Each structure stands twice: as structure tokens, then as C-alpha cells.
């Protein structure tokens, strides 16, 4: 479904962010990417989201080379991908409902669909009671759950979670990981980056370990080993 083919990213100051990365992700897979800060995890995700182009190599989503997509195709492609960030990136002046509806509006969904799907997806992340609250009235864990709800509301094929638990305490971390697992069980591919050892070890899913822009391990049922 996703295939990185000998991808390198070299910045103009000739620092190498990624070097000769090749791997594939199957549909409905749950894959974790681990590594120290600066190992290249975020660069990898940015290139997958077409925010940056690889210096060498190709990235395929289904049969399309992502780096050759034009603006409209990138927009279409991004609607098939949900993204969750460490810093949540919710809009502070909109309540939970509006934050999620916003993503659906941008994807061109009808008002009826929005009214039906937003409560449903909030139910999935167990946050239905806070539907009219604003982000500043929520805890970190709750905000991250809103952010996940926003990422999955358009029923994407892939959900990318970039250090989603980085700002959370262990209990909330556990909750978030359980939600991501649930999403994966419902049939969505999940790509998770983290440096939380506990998360990786409890997941018992595929782990890709990166260091200095290279993949050094790729384990089917991996543990956090660096």
C-alpha cells in the first residue's frame, strides 16, 4: 500500500536527513517508527505527506508516486490520510464539534454527514460529553483524543500519529494507544512515531528502528531497542 523506494533526503547545506530508505507498509498494518530525535522520523512523515520532496528515490501510495502529484492531487491524497500531532494543533477559538466539522468541511462533506459523523467519531474516542467545550477547557489527553477524532472523521486509509503521546502522562498515553489500536482494528493503517519504550513494548506490533537517517532494524513484533 505504501512503499518507500531508496529514498534519500539531503538538505541544501548537505546535511543528510534520510539515506537510502526502503520499506513497505501493508494495508491494515500497525507500524511504529522509533528512534532518537533527529533520527529522521519526522522527515520521513513529511515526505509521505508531500510536505517535502525526496532528493532521491520514490514514495508510492497505492500505485502513485507522491512526489509527482500536483496541488489538487496532493489535496485529494491528504484527504485519505489523517494526521495526529504531538502538539494537537486544534483551533483554539472553535469548540470540539467545530474543530472536527472543520476537517469535514474542508473535505467537502455535506452538512448532514457532518451532523451525523461528528458525534459518532467522538463516541469512538470516548469524548461525547465534551462536544461543546473549547480546547482550553480540556486536558492534554482529551485534546489529543479530539485531534485523533479529527484525523479519522473523514475515514482515511492511513492515520499518521507523530509522537502523539509526547506531551501526555502515562495514563493518557495508555488511552491514546488503545484508541489507535481500536482504529487499526477497524481497518485503518496506522503509522506511529514515538520514543516511548512502554508504548512500543505493550503494542507487540511491527517496529521500524531508525538512527542517523537509516533504518537499522525492522522487527515483525518488535520491542524498543536502541
Amino acid at each position, binding site marked *: 500500500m505504501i512503499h518507500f523506494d531508496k529514498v534519500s533526503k539531503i538538505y541544501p547545506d548537505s546535511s543528510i536527513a534520510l539515506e537510502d530508505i526502503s520499506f513497505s507498509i501493508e494495508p491494515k498494518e500497525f507500524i511504529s517508527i522509533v528512534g532518537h530525535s533527529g533520527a529522521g522520523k519526522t522527515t520521513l512523515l513529511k515526505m509521505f505527506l508531500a510536505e517535502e520532496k525526496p532528493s532521491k528515490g520514490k514514495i508510492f501510495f497505492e500505485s502513485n508516486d507522491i512526489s509527482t502529484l500536483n496541488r489538487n492531487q496532493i489535496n485529494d*491524497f*491528504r484527504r485519505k*490520510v489523517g494526521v495526529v500531532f504531538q502538539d494537537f494543533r486544534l483551533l483554539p477559538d472553535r469548540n470540539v464539534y467545530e474543530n472536527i466539522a472543520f*476537517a469535514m468541511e474542508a*473535505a*467537502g462533506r455535506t452538512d448532514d454527514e457532518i451532523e451525523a459523523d461528528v458525534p459518532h467519531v467522538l463516541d469512538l474516542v470516548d469524548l461525547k460529553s465534551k462536544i461543546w467545550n473549547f480546547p482550553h477547557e480540556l486536558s492534554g489527553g482529551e485534546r489529543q483524543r479530539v485531534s485523533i477524532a*479529527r484525523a479519522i472523521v473523514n475515514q482515511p486509509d492511513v492515520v499518521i500519529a507523530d509522537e502523539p503521546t509526547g506531551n501526555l502522562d502515562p495514563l493518557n498515553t495508555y488511552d491514546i494507544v488503545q484508541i489507535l489500536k481500536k482504529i487499526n482494528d477497524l481497518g485503518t493503517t496506522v503509522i506511529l512515531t514515538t520514543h516511548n519504550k512502554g508504548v512500543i513494548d505493550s503494542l507487540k506490533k511491527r517496529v521500524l528502528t531508525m538512527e542517523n537517517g537509516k533504518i537499522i532494524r525492522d522487527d515483525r513484533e518488535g520491542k524498543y531497542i536502541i
Partner: protein
Amino acid sequence: MIWIKLKRIVRSGFYSFWRNGFVSLSSILVMMVTLFVIGSTIFSGAILGSTLNQIKDKVDVNVYFVTTAPEEEILAIKESIEKLPEVAPPVVYISKEDVLADFKKRHENDEFTLQALDELGENPLGATLNIKAKDPSQYESIVKFLDNESTLSSDGTSIIDKVNYYQNKDAIDRLTNIINSANRLGVILTIFLIIISTLITFNTLRLVIYMSRDEIAVMRLVGASTNYIRGPFFVAGAIYGFISAIFTLILFYPITIWLGNTTENFFVGLNVFHYYTANFGQIFLVIVASGVAIGSVSSFLAVRKYLKV
């Protein structure tokens, strides 16, 4: 589908307008300056134009005849002048007697002159023809026509004493020049001010958009199209322009009343307030259209920077 999108774009345009209250206010104030300048240009153009017309209207050419010129010959010349296409009828004939009466009336407080006139015994003043051209530039050809016309009396001397066009010409030319260069200076100044205030508006809107950069980034990441992201800013910019235009038009109301009362005597005959109310439709259109155009185009351009993600 397009209808839903349009509705959402307009709605979130209004939304972003309300939410950024303070910045909206400053944008509106800055745009009001621009629109005020544009409006002032319209008014000063009208004032200068009407002043020029008034002056042009006051310009005429007087043909003075010698005292011995027979009345029939003068009337014959009058008739032939009236047939000229350049001349705005009527050509006014003032007989010797009327000229004398006029002269006496003008100098009724001037004992010396009246005495001198009495001592002279006879009327020293000749009859006059008063000619107006349809356009000031045509005086020249009228005067040429007079030169060529046979205006000789039976004894071979000209019955025309003098034509005062050549003295007036200088004054007329100078006035026209002054008004034209005032007009030109006004236009240059206005263009300059419009550029400055458009740039300030542009920068103020950039601030609004800068505050929304997170929102833009999130919209990008959920796959919103470029126009869908740009649309609300475009709408908000247009709203800024529209509101500024309305405020400017309201502001012109007391200003033109005041100006109208104080300048009516100075600028011959044009009351700015009457001009404003009489041409309100046009002025409204120009101001509102400029406001909406400046606002929407500036924000359309300003948002470009944050769309690259």
C-alpha cells in the same frame, strides 16, 4: 457541492472578520484613509472642473468700434459673426448710447471722470459687440475671421477700433494652465497616496492572516483546496473594504456640509455638499468598488505566503 463550499467560505469569512475584532478595526481605519483620498480626489476634481468652467464662461471677446461707425454696418458684422459655427449665440450689440450710460453708471461716484466727459461734449465711446465662443480655444478663429472680414468703412478706414481678445488671451491661458497643473498635481498625489495606503492595508491584512497561519496549516493537512483556504480571507477582505467604504461615505456627509458652506464663495458656484448628494450614486459605487477591490485583492495576495505547506 459548489453551493455548500461557497456558503462555508462566506460564513467563515464573516467568522474571521468578527473573531479578529481589533485587527479588523485597524484594517478598516487604514482602508478608510485610502478611500477618503479617493473620495477627496473626486471632490477636488469636481471643484476644479467647475471652477474652470465658470472661468471659461466668463471669458468673452469684445469688439470695440470706432465712434463714427454706422450702426447698419455693425449690425451686418454682428449677423455674419452669428453665422459662424464656433460662436455661441447671441452676439450682444451694445450701442454707443448704452455704452455711455454703462460707463456713467460705473463711474457715478467719480466726479472727475464725469466732469471730463461733460466737458468733452460728445460721446467718445464707440459701440461694442460682445461675442462668446462655444469653447475658449475657438476665440482665435473668431478673431481671425474678424480680421479678414471686410470691415472697412466707405472712406477706407477700419470701423473696428480694437478687439480685446489679445489682452484677455494671456490671462485666460495662464488660468487654464494653473488649473490644469493643479489637476495634474492632484492626480499624482492621489496615486501616490493610494499606493501607500494600499500597501498599509496589505500589511495589516497580512497580520490578520499571520494570526491564522495555524488554521491554514491545519486546513492544508486535512486536504483543503487552495481556493477553499483563500476564500474566507478574500471574503473578509471584501467585508473590510465594504465597511470602510460605508464609514467613509458617512464621514463625507458632515465634511461636505462644512466645506460646502465655507468654500461656496471661494470656488465660484459649486457647493460640495450639493455635488455629493446629487452624485451620491456614482460616488457610492466608486468608493464601495474601490474598497472591496483593495480589500479582497490585498488579502488574496497576502495569504499566498502561508499557502505553501
